[in-house]
């Protein structure tokens, strides 16, 4: 159910989209949110409000919604701890001739999310996130970069939804790489690699080796140091 809009600055549209206008982008955003989840573990939408801006051939929807997570007692099935039952999410959905693309998804437990956005240092070094709504050419630029990534690493995706999801992950990973870059004390450069369309969980599960932490392994004799030798 749309909630009443708040007062706006002159150059931005009010959060006054009707529920019928919100339906398609909201449903798409929820599908992306629930992507990969088994039946019975999917979240549902609570309150929602939205606004739209015409961009190029399509419309850019900015949505703010509460998302109700189902009660879950199997941590392996539901990634969120049970206590975070209601999430506050903001989505950016681009609708071009009926085809939807999720440009941004930002969710947090209702009580923590507000503090996160209050973090000035966070916003200072990621200027891209400060622009709300996104600059008009942002999505076009990111799409170009993503296409170049797909060509470079010969990426193909099973479906349009999969490609849209990977685009979302790719965009999020660029921001993660920026953070790692900002915090590195050496001369390393971080950015797009062949793993840029994998979530952190996927990368860890597929490519890394949890056994190294869990098991001590067989005891070996200690090597003599070189000058002893």
């Amino acid at each position: 159910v749309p909630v009443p809009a708040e007062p706006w600055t002159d150059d931005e549209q009010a959060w006054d989209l009707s529920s019928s206008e919100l339906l398609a982008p909201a449903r798409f955003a929820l599908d992306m949110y629930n992507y990969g989840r088994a039946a019975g573990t999917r979240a549902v939408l609570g309150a929602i409000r939205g606004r739209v801006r015409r961009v190029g051939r399509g419309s850019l929807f900015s949505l703010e919604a509460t998302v109700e997570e189902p009660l879950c007692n199997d941590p392996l099935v539901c990634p969120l701890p049970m206590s975070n039952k209601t999430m506050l999410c903001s989505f950016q959905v681009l609708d071009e001739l009926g085809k939807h693309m999720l440009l941004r998804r930002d969710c947090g437990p209702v009580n923590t999310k507000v503090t996160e956005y209050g973090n000035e240092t966070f916003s200072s070094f990621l200027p891209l996130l400060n622009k709300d709504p996104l600059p008009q050419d942002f999505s076009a630029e990111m799409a170009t970069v993503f296409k170049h990534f797909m060509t470079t690493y010969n990426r193909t995706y099973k479906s349009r939804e999969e490609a849209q999801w990977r685009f979302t992950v790719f965009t999020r990973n660029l921001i993660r790489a920026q953070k790692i870059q900002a915090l590195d004390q050496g001369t390393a450069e971080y950015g797009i690699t062949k793993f840029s369309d994998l979530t952190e969980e996927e990368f860890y599960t597929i490519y890394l080796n949890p056994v190294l932490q869990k098991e001590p392994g067989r005891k070996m004799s200690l090597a003599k140091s070189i000058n002893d030798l």
Partner: protein
Amino acid sequence: APPEWDWRKKGAVTEVKDQGMCGSCWAFSVTGNVEGQWFLNRGTLLSLSEQELLDCDKMDKACFGGLPSNAYTAIKDLGGLETEDDYSYQGHVQACSFSAQRAKVYINDSLELSKNENKMAAWLAQKGPISVAINAFGMQFYRHGIAHPLRPLCSPWLIDHAVLLVGYGNRSNTPYWAIKNSWGSNWGEEGYYYLYRGSGACGVNTMASSAVVN
């Protein structure tokens, strides 16, 4: 230890390999070490089989992970390693089809090395590439240069990736370890990762080991 060293320049390191979508870094780290030991002690550089370890090392978990110390024991117990060509990499576990007759190399023992990075450097320069295990923080997006993550972000207690030290040196006064990874040559610097040396960055000194070839 000499100020810098690079076993790639001395023919002791095979080409960069690709573990594919499999957590078999431990096997590549160990074969890389044994390749170096066999070259330095028997004079021949052979590219050795990781698939044999995936299939036949029952102490470890193939694509779900493994430990270099277990892998050395498996190589000894099996009776050696076949070459990459004879027992080629598939990227997933299969039935063990190791044949002692086809084994081209053997090892006699394995050692745990010092956690002192200067001693590690001295050992590497004298004895050959070293199998190590590190915290892979940031490596998903690493492109080039010497990585030096903040210690809280790259804790030495959260080791999750096994690799091979093949050399060390300095780049514009920044000390580094040259690390052979197993994610293919289209990742990092032609498949190599350069990590800050001297501060135990990402736990590089916590699990150093080597095979022994008499």
